[in-house]
């Protein structure tokens, strides 16, 4: 799973999709995950990175992560959106 190449994400958490002209705001943890996705980290690597840094547990993060990926997918921000769905 990877973020589309043309998507711009600022450090402050502003995401811009030049194809559709849509803008999004993302919170710091969301921005971290987007950057990890851009680096083509696996789900497991992302999970380990977040759990090492933040005070949460695996089930909570897993649920929130899947929800977050679902919203990214819904907004066509992921490279392999169609493949993921299939």
């Amino acid at each position, binding site marked *: 799973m990877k973020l589309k190449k043309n998507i711009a994400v600022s450090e402050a958490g502003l*995401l811009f999709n030049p194809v559709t002209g*849509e*803008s*999004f*705001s*993302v*919170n*710091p*943890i*969301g921005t*971290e*995950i987007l950057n990890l996705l851009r680096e083509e980290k696996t789900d497991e690597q992302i999970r380990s990175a977040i759990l*090492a*840094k*933040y*005070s*949460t547990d695996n089930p*909570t*993060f897993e649920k*929130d*992560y899947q*929800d*977050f990926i*679902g*919203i*990214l997918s*819904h*907004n066509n921000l992921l490279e392999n959106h169609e493949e993921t769905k299939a």
Partner: protein
Amino acid sequence: MSKQRYERPVIKKLETGMPNKFGTRTEYQPMTHIDGLAVEKLMKDYGSPLFVISEKTIRKTIQKAKKDFRTRYPRVQFAWSYKTNYLNAICSIFHQEGSWAEVVSGFEYDKAISLGVDGKKIIFNGPEKSEEDLTKAIRNDSLIHIDHLDELYTISELAEKHKARPRVAIRVNMDTGVYPIWDRFGFNYENGQAWDAINKIMHSDTLELVGLHCHIGTFMLAPSAYGIAASKLAELALSVEKKFKHEIKYIDLGGGFASKNTLKGSYLPGSDTNPTFDDFAEAISSSLLNSNFKQEKLPLLILETGRALIDEAGYLLGSVISNKRSSTGRRNTILDIGVNILFTSFWYDHKITPAQAFTHYSEDTCIYGPLCMNIDVIRESVSLPLLNKDDHVVIHHVGAYNMTQWMQFIALRPNVVLIDMDEKPHVIRLRETLDNMNSMEKVPAHLKKFNV
């Protein structure tokens, strides 16, 4: 190194529509303490959900209301509306502040007596008063507000039977410019019913007509309506004096003052727009002072306001059970606070504040309660910071009606804690138990055994 506080990842599309110049800000502060006590500690000690009532706020509010009226009109008496919140500790605070008791049932009447309120300082309203209730009220010389002719005749009969002359008032309904007109209580002013009832009382010598009462509505946003009601009752009182040479001792304008809550469908928050005690006092006092009462014969003004005196003092603390998404992608948050204990969520968009630190990121969220019922919705849509499971929230302005209209439905009702003037907590109503509920039930012998 300690880990950072977790906040779930969130992405929100930025919409560019017409800005709302009245848009309410979402970056409010977390409510971590109530009257100096930590919300987290209160919930740890007394459970979740938990009602918390601030004695400081109650006293400050009633003292402000009294000041606003007494600086404008010389003779004012508040009577605490029991149905708004009849927890004994709460009633006692109002009685310590000098309020009489205003009750609307035999149960409430007995509650006031059991608290030690002088029967002469109990106002007995309501459409249903049994002969037993009325007999008690007559013996205690309470102020009985007559709702209909059947009641008038019953009181007359009881007065003769007990050789007493009860002190009564009639309840008057009227057009005050607010619609729909509340015409179910008492006798109508415009069509002559009120005058007819007055004639019946004055021509029979069994009852002493001491007052005129009205209850024009609830959550009234127009102080002018009270001004009109005060004028009409003043005119009626002056007509009684002219025709019967009989002085009406008091005018009782009932309750109904709006609190600072926000009614569903309102564009602006109630805390910014709803009238203050000053506004109501100005409208009512002006009407009475501008009427034709002589200075030395101004009637006592009685006010039975409940909601506006207690709503702000009440908080409901609860916890997040879960976050999920609806089929349409909307964020749903489930709290352990349901409509069974927050009845007023049917009327108001209650303000909800997280009880712990949060970032400025927020999401439009639907807040559900824990009940297995589709109607269990606390807020249909509210912009809230990102709440995690087990986070705590504070719901504001819940002091009125919730602790009387709450339902023992699906779950047991929680503890109610009062924070006193010295910032010490007291449980003033214990959490219900299964034993409490079962103690009121009886199972016939043939139903006591089963095999499943």
